[in-house]
């Protein structure tokens, strides 16, 4: 039962990632190269914020 739940969770997560990627791809198609690079740069900065907060939390665990 536990294994089945894990498999279902994995399938749901994979399907959500696929939908998310399709939506992202669709929104990217009409953009200029500069807009796409700016978007990637912005996401990279957001990732840096996420990295900092994750490091703070995980280092607090040990």
């Amino acid at each position, binding site marked *: 039962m536990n294994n089945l739940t894990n498999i279902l969770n994995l399938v749901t997560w994979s399907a959500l990632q696929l939908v998310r990627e399709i939506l992202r791809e669709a929104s990217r198609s009409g953009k200029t190269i500069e807009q796409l690079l700016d978007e990637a740069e912005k*996401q990279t900065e957001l*990732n840096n914020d996420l990295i900092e907060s994750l490091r703070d939390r995980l280092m607090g665990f040990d």
Partner: protein
Amino acid sequence: MNYPTRTHRIFLATSLALALVATAACDKSKEYAKMNARLAGYLQVGLELVDRQTSAGQMSASTGLAIVNALSTVNTINGELIAESKKYLSPDGSKLVFDPAGKARVLQIVQSGETVLANLLTSEAFASIPADKRKEWLDLIQNLTLTLDTLGEVVKAAKEAK
């Protein structure tokens, strides 16, 4: 009905050929920029996955931290790729035109990203991910590697500025 003359046909064929060449160059550049955006998106997915799995007690903090450090390096590498690419944006912003040195630099950055991901796959941190959670990580790391590979292929195939 007026049929096009020979001159019209030659003009139309030449225009079409030029449009196709321009579109192909633009599409390759766009594909490249999309890869940067996709890479950043996959990294966000990875960071959220660490957050979720460590919060749920499905991954230890030390494993999570090791993965975050690897993803952070790839994120920095993606930032470098974006900054480097912006230097080669044509004046009208329609395509990326790399010179030989720029191409070599971008390929070097791409390769360093691939090395970080290959090292993560053989690391102790990766081996300590619970077996039932490893598939998600394998998929994600494969997607990141594939995106970097594609980026490298697009740059290799790109025409160089004279």
